[in-house]
């Protein structure tokens, strides 16, 4: 093993599922390894809440099933983690925010339930940005920032991260993990778990995946249920998959997708196995390259990767053609406005009355609301809410657009 302080100790296990089935590795052993890894790499600050006790119990049950030939699914016995915006019954779900710092949901998100029904073992809830708003570096959570595992001075600096609201970081020699599903990406990259769920609204699964060197998949909206996924932008949010390999991502997607009666925006597909064939044949597949994406400020390295990918497709027999997405130039503005609007709306429920942080100021209902929300939300979130409410005012152009949409 290379002793360089900048080299990550990778955890290679492509045949892990097979090893589990054959009994070479027991589920409990696997979970223990993951648990040790998580403890050892605590300084990366990827996890909010761990569920090791419960995991141990589930590991034993899973092992029994596998031993007796009754494995429920490929995922039976596989340790996974979810971003801390997925509701988990009885397990703290904070959204890395003060407003939900001590919130313990009374139900579990559908996609998490589905994975657990397959026998996958929930190991932890993961850090992300404070309610998903902040810079894209995953530095804005109340638990402190998550660090990129690939360039981290493990040996030189064994520091414990101070978890506090004021974000006093002991060490400064670290790199971002990307966000907002940074914790999930780091956990997968370092082998703390073998697969993780993040969420993706505007790249929140794909970006940290890219920065941490793992596979990040944003499934099509409507494929997986959002019931239990604490929303940011209902129109765009999806549960995202982070894994080591594309095959793993396909397996996890297949396990968690499907129409859910509790989510009216999900659809049913006739075939939802998502099994990738061993030999992939893409002859005749039409691949479009949007012209507008070639923006003048695109970095050379990115352009090269893009071209390389296009070439790969072409050489494999696909038909690579230029296409036009003429409204691309407006997309960012639309996204910003619609996001702010939905965020302002979705945050309206955080008043400390039924759940969440409640202020001590009880002088009047209005004062209670104002104080709870001021204390519970950070500046960035408050800023987004203001912007969103502004856009929703009666006199705004947005309202005119909404009304035009209905004619």
């Amino acid at each position, binding site marked *: 093993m290379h002793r360089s302080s900048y080299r990550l100790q990778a955890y290679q296990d492509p045949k892990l599922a097979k090893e589990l089935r054959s009994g070479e590795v027991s589920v409990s052993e696997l979970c223990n390894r993951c648990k040790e890894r998580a403890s050892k790499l605590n300084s990366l600050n990827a996890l909010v809440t761990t569920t090791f006790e419960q995991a141990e119990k589930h590991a034993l049950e899973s092992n029994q099933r596998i031993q007796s030939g009754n494995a429920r699914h490929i995922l039976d016995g596989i340790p996974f983690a979810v971003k801390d915006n*997925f*509701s988990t019954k009885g397990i703290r*779900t904070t*959204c890395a925010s003060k407003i*939900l710092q001590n*919130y313990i*949901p*009374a*139900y579990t*998100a559908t996609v998490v339930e589905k994975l657990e029904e397959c026998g996958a073992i929930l190991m932890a809830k993961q850090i992300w940005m404070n309610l998903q708003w902040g810079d894209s570096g995953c530095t804005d959570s109340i638990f402190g920032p998550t660090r990129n595992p690939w360039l981290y001075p493990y040996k030189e600096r064994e520091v414990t991260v101070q978890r506090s609201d004021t974000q006093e970081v002991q060490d400064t020699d670290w790199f971002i993990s990307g966000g907002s599903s940074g914790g999930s990406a780091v956990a997968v990259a370092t082998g703390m778990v073998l697969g993780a769920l993040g969420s993706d609204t505007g790249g929140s699964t794909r970006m940290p995946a890219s920065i941490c060197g793992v596979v990040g998949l944003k499934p099509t909206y409507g494929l997986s249920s*959002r*019931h*239990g*996924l*604490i*929303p940011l*932008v*209902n*129109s765009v949010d999806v549960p995202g998959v982070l894994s080591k390999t594309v095959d793993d991502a396909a397996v996890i997607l297949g396990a968690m997708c499907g129409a859910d*009666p*509790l*989510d*009216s*925006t999900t659809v049913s597909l006739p075939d939802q196995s998502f099994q990738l064939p061993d030999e992939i044949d893409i002859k005749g597949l039409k691949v479009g390259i949007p012209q507008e994406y070639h923006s003048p400020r695109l970095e050379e390295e990115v352009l090269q990767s893009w071209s390389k990918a296009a070439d790969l497709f072409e050489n494999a027999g696909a038909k690579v053609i230029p296409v036009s997405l003429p409204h691309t130039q407006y997309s960012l503005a639309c996204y910003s406005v619609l996001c702010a*609007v*939905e965020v*302002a*709306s979705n*945050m*309206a*429920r955080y*008043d400390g*009355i*039924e*759940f969440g942080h409640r202020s001590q100021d009880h002088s009047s*209902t*209005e004062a209670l*609301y104002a104080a709870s929300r001021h204390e519970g939300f950070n500046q960035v979130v408050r800023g987004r809410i203001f912007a969103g*409410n502004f856009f*929703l*005012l*009666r006199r705004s152009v947005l*309202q005119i657009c*909404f*009304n035009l*949409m*209905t004619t």
Partner: protein
Amino acid sequence: MAARNVMKGKTGDWLAVIGLEIHAQIASHSKLFSGSKVKFMAPPNQLVSFFDAALPGTLPVLNKYCVEASILTALALSCKINKKSLFDRKHYFYADMPAGYQITQQRKPIASNGHLLFNVYDDVKREKPRRHRVNIKQIQLEQDSGKSLHDEEKQQTLVDLNRAGVGLMELVTEPDMSNGKEAAAFVQELQTILERIGTCNGKMAEGALRVDANISVNKPGEPHGVRTEVKNINSVRFVKNAIEYEIRRQIDVLESGGTVVMETRSLDDTGCTIPMRDKEDVLDYRFMPEPNLPPLVLYDDTTINSTICQEKAINVDTLRRRMPELPEDQRQRLTEDYGITYSNAVKLVNEEGLADLFEQLCTASSRKETKRLINWCLIDILKCLHQRNLTVKQSPIPVEKLSDIFSSLQSGEISAKSAQKLLELLFDGDSRSVSEIMDVENLRQITSEEEVLKFCTKAVNEEPDLVEVYQSRNKKVINKLMGIVQMKSKGRIEPQLAKRIMEELLERRRRR
């Protein structure tokens, strides 16, 4: 334009313009967007699902029955059904609305452009109704809020979320009413219709039907005045009184040189309107499309086959065919088929179940003596029900027994008084057959002249003085003798028969 009622003020004539916004609670088993139960007067916070409490991550799921209920209501009010309608969020902060917004239909409601024709009685005796038409602007589906109770003493607010999320149909009328009577009559007819089609129980006292009135006044020929809103009127009587009070109040304000403030007012116990505290006049609700609910698409016979999800799809035409007979149609039909007066038909239809009972009794009775039967239903039976606080449905007497009583009454086998006694006994729980009771309680009429003569003879023999008076001076004392006869026979002799026999007897005695 409908006939407007003119009100006299100190400075001249005034006209009033009234529109109503009515919230009708849908009589469904579960709430509009969640599976928690709907029940009146349950212990606080017992009927609250995760979605109702706005727990993060929960999503709305549309209740099919609620949609069907609003379509039925819209059809009953001759509305146009919008085959595609949308849901929106209406934002405001209040303790009884956990999400910080209400899901409603602001841009495109489920129905629009309907109307209701109903009777208004301007005369005290309620004999000459005039027809009045009110147009319905739209009907929309929306969530009800929870309830908050303010404890001034302890300086706290108690929140009960049982009602949060219950389905409501909001009916918005055009300002087509001109006085309290018209508005009250509208609400009453609406109640009857909703009860009939089963979409809302219409009980204002329980809060199942809540009326907000928009009222303004103006001089004839001038444009509409500034309007005020009177909220949460909870009885038909208060609809009339509150509106009349508010009209008077506005006229007084304007006649004394003041201006009417556009505001929201509530009702005090005496039916006077008072300004509401803490109510912002112009609140920006920051409407936004509800992103978690796709557009609501409805089908009809021509389009139902185009949907891939036939089990879940709603066919408006199927609902139209399921529509029960509406109250006004029933009134007309009863008048035509049974020859009863419209006024009696109105009374029959007003009491739920009574019209059906009447029709059943008509069919059972061999003679079509509907006149007598209608009176018997409206007076005798109804009296028994009301005395015991029962609805027709709760009546303990099966139709067959009522029919037996009526046919005995018709045939003269029993007198009206005996029929009354029979009713009372049966209503109080007597389970014997009608025939048995008549025998045991000796209720049958005495029809044989011989028998009648015996009673008359007894009376005459006991009261020789009265006979003397009759024979010499005053024929009217026969009534006293009749009284004795009735008493002795326990009212079982038909009065006319008794009188004839008595007169004959007295005549014979006189001749002796």
